[in-house]
């Protein structure tokens, strides 16, 4: 399915942030904004909700901790108890280091895999981008064009008024 986009190219993050506010206030839906670095304040301007990844990370960590404790208690306490240095079979203080490491291991990898999955980040041969300069020095605002002949010129004017240095039209094939 092919979609058409109006791309407003901005040179500066502050101009971009004002433009986002003004354009949203004008009732135009912004498809996405592409920037070469994380622009602080863009989440509020675009109305992006706070990520719930920290909650996921917490539960991954909890899983790791539980798994580590179960593993050590089961192996040394029940499956094959051994007397080591006269210590009790379930010597909890000695289990702290491994439990901590497993907590960190599960938390970090679980969160990163979740991040890759929800952001659809995976290795691929070709990456179609709106504008190659969005990873260099330009801030690219994409607005989807519905089939209206006057829409592009209207959006061009709106973007120009809000400080876009150029406005382009781009067709993207999406799955």
């Amino acid at each position, binding site marked *: 399915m092919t979609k058409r986009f109006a791309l407003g190219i901005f*040179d*500066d993050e*502050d*101009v971009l*942030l*004002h433009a986002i506010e003004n354009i949203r206030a004008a009732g135009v839906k912004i498809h*996405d*904004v*592409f*920037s*070469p*670095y*994380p622009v*602080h*304040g*863009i*989440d*509020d301007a*675009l109305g*992006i909700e706070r*990520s719930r*990844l*920290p909650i996921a*990370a917490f539960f991954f960590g909890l899983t790791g901790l539980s798994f580590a404790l179960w593993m*050590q208690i089961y192996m*040394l306490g029940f499956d094959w108890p*051994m007397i*080591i240095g006269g*210590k009790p079979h379930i010597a909890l203080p*000695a*289990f702290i*280091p*491994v439990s*901590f*490491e497993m907590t*960190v*291991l599960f*938390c970090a*990898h679980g*969160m*990163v895999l979740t*991040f890759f999955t929800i*952001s659809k*980040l*995976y*290795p*691929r*041969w*070709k*990456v179609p*981008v709106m504008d*190659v*300069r*969005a*990873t*260099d*020095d330009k801030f690219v605002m994409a607005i989807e064009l519905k089939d209206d002949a006057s829409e592009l010129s209207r959006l061009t004017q709106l973007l120009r008024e*809000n*400080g876009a*240095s150029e406005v382009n039209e781009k067709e993207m094939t999406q799955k």
Partner: protein
Amino acid sequence: MQHVSPVREPLVTGGKTYHDITQDVCRQVEAKPNIRWMAALSVALFFLGIFFYSVYRTLWYGIGEWGLNKTVGWAWDITNFVWWVGIGHAGTLISAVLLLFRQKWRSSINRAAEAMTIFAVICAAMFPVLHMGRPWLAYWVFPFQNTFGSLWVNFNSPLLWDVFAISTYFSVSLVFWYIGLIPDFATIRDRAKGPIAKRAYALLSFGWKGSAKAWSRYETVSLILAGVATPLVLSVHTIVSMDFATSVVPGWHTTIFPPYFVAGAIFSGFAMVLTLMLITRVVFKLEDYITIEHIALMNKIMMITGSIVGVAYITEFFIAWYSQVEFEQYAFINRATGPYWWAYASMMTCNVITPQLVWFRRIRYSIPATFILSIIVNIGMWFERFVIIVTSLHRDYLPSSWVMFSPTWVDIGIYVGTLGLFFTLFLLFAKFFPVVNMAEVKTILKYGVDNGPTYTGHHGHAHQVAPAHQPVAPAIPASAPVNYNKHD
């Protein structure tokens, strides 16, 4: 707007624009390898060859190829292991701890320092694995069922804690490093001309496009990873120190070891970061990103951690006397005045006196002096581990087993070989990966620069940059309202 203070020094000098950052960092990735890089790689590969030959001798003829004996069962292998792991810690300190403390200057050294961490941990891992004698059975350190012929692993043993600590540390550092690399791989991908480079960097970039939502999540992930990596890095060297501290060997059995080892690790790691950065900034012409201020700040961290290490040396001595345990006292007297006095003297000179020179501003801001100091600290920290390990072991409770340790050429070969392995990996990284985190440096470009790259009008594509250090009000485009509350 960004808070602008005439007091703050800019973090990036030379009046760079965003595009300049991309150009400066991508230059060496896109250029053909130059002769100096090829020459350096050849030297590194030569030492890597020595590594492989020494490893072959170790595996074919056994651990008897090393200089170990009945009394000194741990020597160069564990010395080198601790030395390499310690070096790695500075990378995590820069990428995680300084992120939590909002030290923005870390951005331009973060990438290379973290690469150093990963390569250092790879080098470190070689020693315990080779000391196993049969490295193809290395997976026995993990808890597998006893159909393999043994019981479960012993979770009470610090050596097992080390297995979990080092493998967690390595994999988490690798992921942290890679997450940071993704946006920069996308930058290289979008600039790439050749079909192979374009495909390769497309694969590496994981399809990154820089959308606002992805950046928002990226920042969350970075922050949480920094949050878990900070206690992780402290735990790793704490556990490494417990390999010694939980034993009953005089000279090892001390409660001061965990903080003392962590401080020593950061001390030696910053020395290695300085050595690498001083070379990297000149070879890749990154003086505007890795500035003299960066070097001075790293020198200060080296001085603080070096002083902690110095205090720890003296405390150990005091406690040995105060404990009234004659074996403990002998271990320390023997360290300082016994047959290995020269190793102890090298350690004290390199690690206690050298960092104190950094109090002088002229030394702190001098590139040649810093380079020499960083090498001396690396040597000193190697001797510290050698002193702790060999001098504590070579004269044990039974005087009839007292011996000296001397390394064989295989010991030396594996050690200099890991240096070859480290520099081979670092040189490949420096050629094919962006050595400076472009995306992060772009966020700090305006820091301390009044009137940074600013929008100049509807048709102005050029960025107007005022000279730094000039306390003028930030230029605000007429079309934009000023009262935007940006959270920084």
